[in-house]
C-alpha cells in the first residue's frame, strides 16, 4: 500500500520481519533453502501480526485508529460505493470540509452518506481541520439527512473525528446547540440510519452524527466520552497518564460491545485496516449491505420505536424501592447478557 512512512512503535517487529522477507524475496537465486526460508518467514509474519494485533492495549488501539494511512471516509466512498455525488453546504454559513455529505449508490440502494473527513496530505488535513467539525458541518449533516428522509433514502454515517472543534467561531455559531439538535432530529428521522465508527469516535463530535438504528465499530476504532489525553489532563492532572486513561475509559470495540453501546464489531484485516484498504472496504460493504437489506422497507413506526428503545436502554444504575425496603434490589439495568454475548454479524 502506498502510504506514509508512519510506523507505530509496537509494530516494529512486524516491519523488521517484513524487511528480512523483502530482502530474501529480492534475491536473484531462489534456492530451495531460500524458498523454504521465505515460506517460514511468511508464516511467522502472520503469527506475529496475530499476536500483536490480538492483544492491543487500549492506547495502542487509539494509535491504530489515528494512523494516517487508515482508510477514511473518502477512501470508502471510492471503494465501497459505485458513485458519490457530493452535496455541499449548510444553507446558512458555509461548507465545512470536515464533514462530507452526498448521494451514493451501494448495489441497488440509493443512500445518503455523511462522514467525517480528516484528510491525508498536509494540505487536505488543514482544509478539513483534521476532521474537527464546526457547527456548519453538523448543520449540513442534519440538513442532508432530512433531505434523504424526504425522498426515502437510508442514511449511512461514517464517524471519524477527534471531536467537535473547540474554538471561538465554533462557540459563536452554537457548537453545543447544533450537536444537541442533531441527536434530537436523528432520533426521529423517518428513514433508516446506519452508523459506523471507522476510526476515532471522539465524544460529542462523533455522537453528533451517531444516533442510528444500528451503530457499529471497526475492530480497532475507538469511541470515547473524552480523549484519553483530555481525561488524563483533568483526572490525573497530566497528559502523560493517557495510557491509564485509555484503559479506564473502556473505549475499545470489545468493551463497548460488552456494554451494549455498539451493536456489532466489524473485523479488520490482519494487522489493521491501514494495511489493506481494499479488504477493509469489502468487509464494510458486506456489513452495510446486510443492514440495508434488514432495515429498508421496515415500517417507519416500528423503526423509530426500536431506535428509541435502543438508546433508551443505555445506562447502568441501581434502583431500590426506598428506605422501607431493607436490602435495595441491586438490579443493575444492564444490557441483556445474550445481547452482549451476540457474535459479530460480519466476520470474513
Amino acid at each position, binding site marked *: 500500500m502506498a502510504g506514509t512512512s508512519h510506523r507505530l512503535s509496537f509494530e516494529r517487529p512486524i516491519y523488521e520481519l517484513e524487511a528480512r522477507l523483502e530482502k530474501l524475496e529480492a534475491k536473484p537465486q531462489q534456492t530451495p533453502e531460500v524458498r523454504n526460508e521465505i515460506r517460514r518467514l511468511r508464516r511467522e509474519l502472520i503469527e506475529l501480526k496475530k499476536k500483536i494485533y490480538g492483544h492491543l492495549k487500549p492506547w495502542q488501539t487509539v494509535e491504530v485508529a489515528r494512523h494516517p494511512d487508515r482508510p477514511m471516509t473518502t477512501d470508502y466512498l471510492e471503494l465501497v460505493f459505485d458513485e458519490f455525488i457530493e452535496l455541499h453546504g449548510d444553507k446558512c454559513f458555509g461548507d465545512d470540509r470536515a464533514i462530507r455529505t452526498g448521494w451514493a449508490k451501494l448495489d441497488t440502494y440509493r443512500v445518503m452518506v455523511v462522514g467525517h473527513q480528516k484528510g491525508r496530505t498536509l494540505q487536505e488535513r488543514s482544509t478539513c481541520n483534521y476532521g474537527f467539525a464546526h457547527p456548519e458541518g453538523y448543520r449540513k449533516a442534519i440538513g442532508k439527512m432530512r433531505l434523504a428522509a424526504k425522498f426515502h433514502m437510508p442514511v449511512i454515517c461514517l464517524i471519524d473525528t477527534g471531536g*467537535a472543534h473547540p474554538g471561538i467561531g465554533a462557540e459563536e455559531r452554537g457548537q453545543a446547540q447544533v450537536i444537541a439538535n442533531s441527536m434530537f432530529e436523528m*432520533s426521529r428521522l423517518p428513514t433508516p440510519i446506519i452508523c459506523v465508527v471507522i476510526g476515532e469516535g471522539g465524544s*460529542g463530535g462523533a455522537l453528533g452524527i451517531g444516533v442510528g438504528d444500528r451503530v457499529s465499530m471497526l475492530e480497532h476504532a475507538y469511541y470515547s466520552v473524552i480523549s484519553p489525553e483530555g481525561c488524563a489532563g483533568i483526572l490525573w492532572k497530566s497528559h502523560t497518564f493517557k495510557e491509564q486513561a485509555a484503559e479506564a475509559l473502556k473505549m475499545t470495540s470489545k468493551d463497548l460491545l460488552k456494554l451494549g453501546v455498539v451493536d456489532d464489531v466489524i473485523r479488520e484485516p490482519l494487522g489493521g485496516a491501514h494495511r489493506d484498504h481494499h479488504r477493509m472496504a469489502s468487509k464494510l460493504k458486506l456489513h452495510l449491505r446486510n443492514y440495508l437489506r434488514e432495515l429498508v422497507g421496515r415500517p417507519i413506526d416500528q423503526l423509530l420505536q426500536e431506535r428509541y428503545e435502543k438508546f433508551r436502554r443505555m445506562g447502568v444504575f441501581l434502583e431500590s424501592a426506598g428506605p422501607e425496603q431493607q436490602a435495595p434490589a441491586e438490579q443493575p439495568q444492564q444490557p441483556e447478557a445474550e445481547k452482549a454475548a451476540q457474535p459479530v454479524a460480519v466476520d470474513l
Partner: protein
Amino acid sequence: MMKRAKRGVPEGLWMRCPGCQQTIFRKEAEKRLGVCPECDYHWYVPARERIRQVLDEGTFEEWDEYLEPTDPLSFVDKKPYCERLKEEQERTGLRDAALVGTGMIRARRVAFGVTDSSFIMGSMGSVVGEKLTRTVERATEEQLPLIIISGSGGGARMHEGMLSLMQMAKVSAALARFDSAGGLFISVLTNPTMGGVAASFASLGDVVFAEPKALIGFAGPRTIKATIRIELPKGFQTSEFLLEHGFVDRIVCRRDLKSEIARTIDYCGK
C-alpha cells in the same frame, strides 16, 4: 469538559463577591436568592434550594428518588469512582447530580428537573440521564410543561465512559418525542452549563432562559485556549454572549425566574 470549584455562598458573616470583589453582607445576599446586591452576580444555588426558590412552597413531590449511581466500568483514576461517589453523596446530601419531580409554579403544575453543579461538577452519568429521561417521558404522558434548570461544569461524566455520552442521545430522543407530542420545554441555563449537558437537553428548550453572566458553552475556555493559543475575547461564553449570537431567548434574573416561567406557560397555553 471543565473544572471549577465554586461552592456557593461561603460560610461567615461577610464574603467577597467573585463578580465585583466587594465585601458583601452574607444575610443580604441570601435574602436576594444568592445574588450580589452590588453587581447582580448570581451565586451557585444547591438543587434543593433551587426547588424552594422556583416551586410554590410545599408543592414539590420528588420522582425516582431512589435511583443510585454505580460504577459500571470499575473506574479508577487517582481514586476509585465508587469512593468518589460516596464522598460526593456525603458532602452534598444528594444521591447524584439531579433532582426531578413535579410541583407548582404560581399554581401551574409542571414536571421539573434541576442539576446540581457541585456533585462531580454537575456531570451527567447514567442516573442523571435516566432521571431526566423518565421526567420527560412522564411530562409527555401527563401533558405537563417541562422545566429543567441546568448547572454543569462537567458535561458528560467521564467516570462512566461511553454510558455517559449515550445519556445525551437518550435524553435528546425523549425530548424529541415530547416535542412531537406538542410539549412545552423551558430550559434554564445557570453558571456553568458546559460540554455534554450544553450539547444535549440544555440547548433543546422551546424557550431557553439564562441567568445573567453564566458561563455557557461547548468546549471549556481552557481547552479552547490550549487549542487555538490566543487570548479569548472578554465576555466569551457568557449568557450575554449567547444572547448576542442568538442561542438564548431571554436573560432572566433569579428573582424574576418564577414569573417568567409562569408567563411563558400561559403564552403557550399549557
